[in-house]
């Protein structure tokens, strides 16, 4: 079996293409597991572990060295560090203590102070420094 690994720019979405004779082969299942591990994150609440889909996460926030993840309904604690989370596709660093899911942005508008105001789908407002807006632009391929 041949393995191709191609380096792509940060603008492009990462993908795995599997060409196989048997879609139920164990190694195909293993690759599916890799995909699932990227789409979910483990959150803790009331001493219980919850598997949360990344698409449901609004943002991650670090408070007193602990990371919390926020969904529309709940807040969970999380073992991952912020620097690990801002590498997730379409998640971007909005401040020193916050990593935001760009798919959960409702509006972006500039403020006269030179910063940008981002309104999330839960109507929460975040002021983002120009430095971090540049990172978001890069992630969006602009």
């Amino acid at each position, binding site marked *: 079996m041949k393995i191709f690994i191609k380096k792509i720019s940060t603008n492009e979405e990462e993908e795995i293409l599997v060409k196989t004779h048997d879609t139920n082969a164990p190694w195909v299942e293993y690759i599916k597991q890799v995909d699932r591990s990227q789409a979910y994150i483990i959150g803790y609440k009331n001493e219980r572990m919850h598997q949360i889909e990344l*698409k449901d996460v609004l943002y991650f926030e670090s408070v007193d060295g602990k990371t919390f993840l926020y969904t529309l309904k709940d807040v969970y604690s999380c073992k991952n560090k912020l620097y690990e989370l801002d590498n997730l596709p*379409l998640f971007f660093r909005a*401040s*020193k203590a916050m990593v935001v899911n*760009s*798919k959960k*942005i409702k*509006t*972006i*508008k*500039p403020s*006269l*102070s*030179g*910063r*940008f105001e981002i309104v999330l789908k839960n109507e929460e407002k975040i*002021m983002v*420094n*120009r*430095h971090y*807006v*540049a990172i*978001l*632009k890069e992630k*969006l*391929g*602009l």
Partner: protein
Amino acid sequence: MIKEIKEFFKRFVTIYGYSMLATVFFLEVFSPEAQVGKDFFVNMIIFSFVANIPSLIFIIKKEMTDQELMYCQIICIVLEILLLLPLGHHFGLWAGVAGFIVFLIITVIITFAVRFTLYSADAASARQMLERLKEITGEDEDE
């Protein structure tokens, strides 16, 4: 660092553009027969560069609180006035009390015009990001 240099250059070009516009306007209105030499253009380049220096205060910290931002803006305006008044006088851009007042008013107008131009550029940038985000979200909904 490259991003900061780009921002600095963008502001410099905007200040220079507005300064030249103001020069053309005031020359046309108050002394249509006056001519400006090469020195004047060089002086205006130096003037625009110096006018831009106080804005470097915003890059000392990546993330500022509202209060820090307000202090930086006040310091920036004070520094601009402290630098531009003597430099303007040295370049012969103003003389006497009346000249001083006119120069001060023009400087304030240019400062606001530069702010407005950069704000408009930011608004265009925000629209572009929103459109891209809509494309991405739309793609997901299709799936």
